[in-house]
């Protein structure tokens, strides 16, 4: 029986084109084009590498408005077998808690699942909650911040990148693996797969389809409350060119202005 792999993706504004509104400190995304969350590209590639080695089927999944469709097709063009868009007005305003709940419900609705892949975090909100949240709701094992993973006989072996070093964990399936950004080089779409993806199209599910009550999701069911946004104080940098022959004066100036301290014996 084929391995069932699920890859969670999110469409995010291109980080290079997002700026902070100087008045209310929220992110202004109006000028930005949409892209696939960078870490999700690596998550998809991690799943594709499992599929290269094993008999597996990959389902890409996202919870988003319909504008996410071309991104789901792009994932299919790289080798995913099908794509599910969970789209329902009721989920608007959901924070990471109802989002994880909804995605987990959709995965259950899909049937058997062996490994769920997700990016370590999204570039637009950086919480890193949804992958672990889905693991919790699915009661699955979790290997977060993984740079690579292998599958063998019902177990996932993942290399987790921690602050102190790399931890290799072996966990039984069903498992959730969150994948760190730039941990692999995503393969490119092919013309044949693009044609197939266009022909096949995506699957769209509403909350009703996955059997989730609409009052469990959305803004009202989201525990997160943003109370206040504060900017970092702007620091003005002084640009100064110092010749090599002026090093002594430069160091003295730094000491005099209190930027560095003179070491004692």
């Amino acid at each position, binding site marked *: 029986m084929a391995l069932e792999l699920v890859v969670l993706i999110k469409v995010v504004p291109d980080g290079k084109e997002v700026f902070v509104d100087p008045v209310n400190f929220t992110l202004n995304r109006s000028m930005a084009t949409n892209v696939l969350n960078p870490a999700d590209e690596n998550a998809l590639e991690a799943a594709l590498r499992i599929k290269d080695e094993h008999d597996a089927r990959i389902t890409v999944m996202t919870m988003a408005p319909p504008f996410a469709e071309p991104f789901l097709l*792009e994932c299919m*063009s790289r080798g995913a077998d099908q794509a599910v868009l969970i789209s329902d007005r009721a989920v608007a305003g959901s924070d990471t808690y109802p989002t994880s709940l909804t995605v987990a419900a959709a995965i259950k609705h899909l049937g058997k699942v062996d490994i769920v892949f997700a990016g370590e975090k999204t570039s637009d909100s950086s919480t890193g909650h949804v992958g672990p949240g889905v693991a919790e709701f699915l009661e699955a094992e979790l290997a977060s911040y993984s740079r690579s993973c292998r599958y063998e006989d019902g177990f996932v072996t993942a290399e987790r990148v921690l602050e102190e070093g790399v931890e290799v964990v072996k966990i039984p399936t069903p498992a959730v693996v969150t994948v760190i950004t730039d941990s692999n080089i995503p393969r*490119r*779409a*092919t*013309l*044949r797969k*693009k*044609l197939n993806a*266009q022909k096949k199209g995506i699957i769209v599910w509403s909350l009703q389809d996955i059997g989730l009550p609409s009052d469990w999701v959305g803004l009202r069911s989201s525990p997160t409350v943003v109370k206040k946004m504060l900017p970092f104080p702007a620091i003005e940098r002084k640009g100064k060119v110092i010749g090599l022959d002026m090093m002594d004066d430069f160091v003295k100036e730094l000491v005099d202005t209190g930027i560095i301290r003179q070491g004692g014996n």
Partner: protein
Amino acid sequence: MSEFDAIVVGGGPAGTSAAMRLAASKLNVLLVEKADPPGSKNVSGGVLWGNSLAGVMPDWEKTAPLERYVKSKGIGFLTKDSSIDISFRSTRFNETKTGYTVLRTKLDQFLNKKAKDAGATVVTGVTVDRLAFEGKKVIGVEQDGDVITSDAVILAEGANPRVAIDSGIRSPLKDEDVAIGVKEVIKLPEKTINDRFNLREKEGFAGEYVLGFLDGGVEAGGFLYTNKDSISLGVVISMKHLRENNKTYSYDIVEQFKNHPSIAPLLEDGKVDEYSAHMVQEGGLASIPKLYGNGYMIAGDAAGFSFSNGLILQGMNYAIASGIAAADTIVEAKTGSGISEQSFSKYEEKLMNSFVLKDMHTFKGIGDITWGNLIHQQMPGILEKVMLGLFMEDGEPKRHMNQIVKEALKSSGLKSSKLLLEGYRMYRRM
């Protein structure tokens, strides 16, 4: 049985026009464009001249994303300190059927959508590797090891025809076939542009310049076109000269053009919004490859269809007209004698009967003139000396014009017999 009646490689003006025409004839057509979104990987000046687009879109002037129509056409000779400009504006440059400045990211996305709406399958973001052959017959395209089959293929891949070269149906480009185009899009408020160029709403300016002040004898032309709320500006540099002067950098030449005393004020307070560079087809008739074979045709820039006589640069109208001609050839072959090298020879016939190949033949020697010492090195200097002689008041007794011209010629080192000869050649070939 093939998957498609036709595959069009390249979603620029040539490819989208071909795809629209094929789809309008109810053929099953696939359009493949490497850029996503379309228009984001090419570089074009760009002014769309002529009315070719009407062949696939009769109402294009109302529906296409056009910036401004060319109300004012400029030609300028720039020296280090001076500019000698000819500016032509006319009430006969109407809002219709003339030239339009365009931004290709907008235009190409529009054209690809139109092709899709017409019924073509449009795939973006993927690059075709080469043509797929069965013997000498083209049976489709190859991409990442897969063959997508088709009865006919139109290669409309633009100025860098990799697919044609890698498929062995076109020889690699030579230095003299191409120039390097470097372009910036500079944002400015619509009203500022109107004021600086003396334009009303929707009216535009298109200027070409000879840059006669570059170090090392590098030959380059400049262009400056007004969009709605930006200026497209750039240079086209002879590839040969760029290679011979390896201390010259293309971006340096753009800066020199932008900082020229008569250009800089036009750009003041503008913000660079885009920066791009690409090959420009400049080879003329000599660089045109074999245009068709059994199952394939080459259209647009990929076929070397571009026109430049120093006064005007054109490419998109040739691309559109050739794309339409290629599509019609497929439709006729399908309903007639079938697809063969013989039936595709009609493509060249069609082009010979249209401005596309007629212009290429009429102006076959133009490259020697537009890329030549006279225009780039001597002419700007001579003109400057003449103008200074005529208009600069230095308290000395005034001289006759013939004296001024004679002196200007003398200091340029150009013999008057040579000037006559070169001038005559230029006059004939332009």
